[in-house]
């Protein structure tokens, strides 16, 4: 599984403080820790409190590029901040994210082509979050059609079925699993699937257990990537064991070490 570490996000107080004081050390340490824990890419989000999001994004990406060449997922809703982040991060980055309405796809998909990036498309549009898997599938199909029209290979789409907290809506985890399976039938090569995992447990007790269990279920449904807390090592162990049981990795006695 392609793991995108979620911790460089201004929602965390330490990150917000580092951004505010332009202190690179905590950011770079978080990057190193996440990569050592098995992250393939790092999500980069300046957070809601940043006074000047564009300048904050510039500083964050530059700060990260001083210590790593890893893929970066530029996490913002603002196209101008996104474009600047992609420019500084370089090819192979991830746009996180575009919503599924046509106007947004028309902005972010050409941007992905221009910057040789992949793009996370949330299955949410002007009508909100669909009630079931069919509604999510329709939005994913719109994204695939737009990608083909704009010249973006469909496997550079990362469809996010938009998970909601299980204590808010209990049928949603099932709908998202169904979406993960259905998306693979939309094109050849099919789009990638991704999940903003931690949202499933928002506001619940036993958050780690819920995250871990749902990740394993989603992997079994064919999930390709997740934005998650890679520093949660029991969860990463469960992910690695899942890869083994799905025959995506060859067994050996030290399979945890081998994966890392």
């Amino acid at each position: 599984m392609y793991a995108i570490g979620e911790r460089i996000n201004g929602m965390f107080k330490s990150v917000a403080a580092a951004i505010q004081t332009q202190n690179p050390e905590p950011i770079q340490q978080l990057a190193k820790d996440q990569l050592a824990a098995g992250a393939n890419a790092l999500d980069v989000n300046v957070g809601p409190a940043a006074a000047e999001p564009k300048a904050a994004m510039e500083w964050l990406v530059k700060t990260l590029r001083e210590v790593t060449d890893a893929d970066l997922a530029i996490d913002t809703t603002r196209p101008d901040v996104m474009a600047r982040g992609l420019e500084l991060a370089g090819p192979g980055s991830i746009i996180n994210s575009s919503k599924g309405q046509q106007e947004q796809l028309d902005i972010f998909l050409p941007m992905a082509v221009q910057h040789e990036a992949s793009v996370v498309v949330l299955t949410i549009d002007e009508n909100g979050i669909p009630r079931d898997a069919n509604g999510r599938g329709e939005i994913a199909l719109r994204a695939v059609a737009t990608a083909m029209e704009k010249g973006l290979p469909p496997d550079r789409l990362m469809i996010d079925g938009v998970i909601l907290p299980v204590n808010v809506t209990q049928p949603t985890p099932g709908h998202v699993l169904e979406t993960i399976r259905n998306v693979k039938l939309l094109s050849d090569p099919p789009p990638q699937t991704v999940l903003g995992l931690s949202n499933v447990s928002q506001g619940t007790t036993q958050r780690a257990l819920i995250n871990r269990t749902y990740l394993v279920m989603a992997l079994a449904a064919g999930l390709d990537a997740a934005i998650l807390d890679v520093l949660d090592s029991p969860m990463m162990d469960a992910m690695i064991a899942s890869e083994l049981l799905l025959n995506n990795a060859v067994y050996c006695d030290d399979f945890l070490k081998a994966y890392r």
Partner: protein
Amino acid sequence: MPFEMPVEKWSGAVSTVTIGATAAEGGTRTSVVTVGGDTSLPFLQFEGETPHRPVIAMEVLDVPPEEWPAPMAEAVGDVSNDPAAWARKCVDEFGADMICLRLVGAHPDQADRSAEECAQTVKSVLEAVGVPLIIWGCGQADKDNEVLPRCSEVAAGENCLLGTATQDNYKTITAACMADNHKLITEAPLDINIQKQVNILVSEMGFDLSRIVMYQSTGGLGYGMEYAYSIMERTRLSALASDRMLSMPMLALVGSECWKAKEARTSEEVTPEWGPVDKRGVVWEAATATSFLHGGTHIFVMWHPQAAALLRKTIDSLISKEA
């Protein structure tokens, strides 16, 4: 409708390993070999690169072979009691890319040769030929742990390929390869899980994965060839899927395995319906090697010069850009 070649996209590649060191690199070899680097299943040139051709190492024993089949005795002739002369013949007459010196005489149940005697043999072969050398222990763990470090030491600087490290006995040989800067063969008994485990154990000692060649054990035609092939295939697929613990080039001991088969060695007086014995073993060995070539083997340890010649011809035809 025009035909479109189905092309797989792979994320990984086989690692590249160079064996042998010339004077410029601190050794005395006149040639070196580089294997690996493949970015597709074997020889699918429309899909990826096969940057280095597979190579042929010819096997030389440190003591005269016992109960050799007649065609082998005839091919090697009177040099079989002199490893240096035998190695020279393999290079000069049979065109070997490498020599695989197997120290079978070190085995306590065989000649029980000492570490010093084995090291002298290694030295004499290094002096006799300019091609890179594979140095292979007798397979008895305790004795190998005595013999191989000494052989490694006398070959220091030559960038040899030393074998083998196994799941139960890997520390001494790995340390020797690290100290004297050789490449290492990791061995598993036809078991991809153990193969991966040995590689992890060796890398945990700080040994660089890019200095390993894998030997997953060889089954000759009729004696497990398909099983060995399927392991090679799965190993290659894992390498292409970026499993760095299974991304090393592979080696096969084709000659010694094939010539064990009764089909290769039984005389035609006993089994006249099997045809002439002077062709049978050669074909047995060449057919096995050709199969492994398609399975993704990079280094072939061969016995009979005619089998080696047939294999070389097949490699030529597969590696040719015009093919």
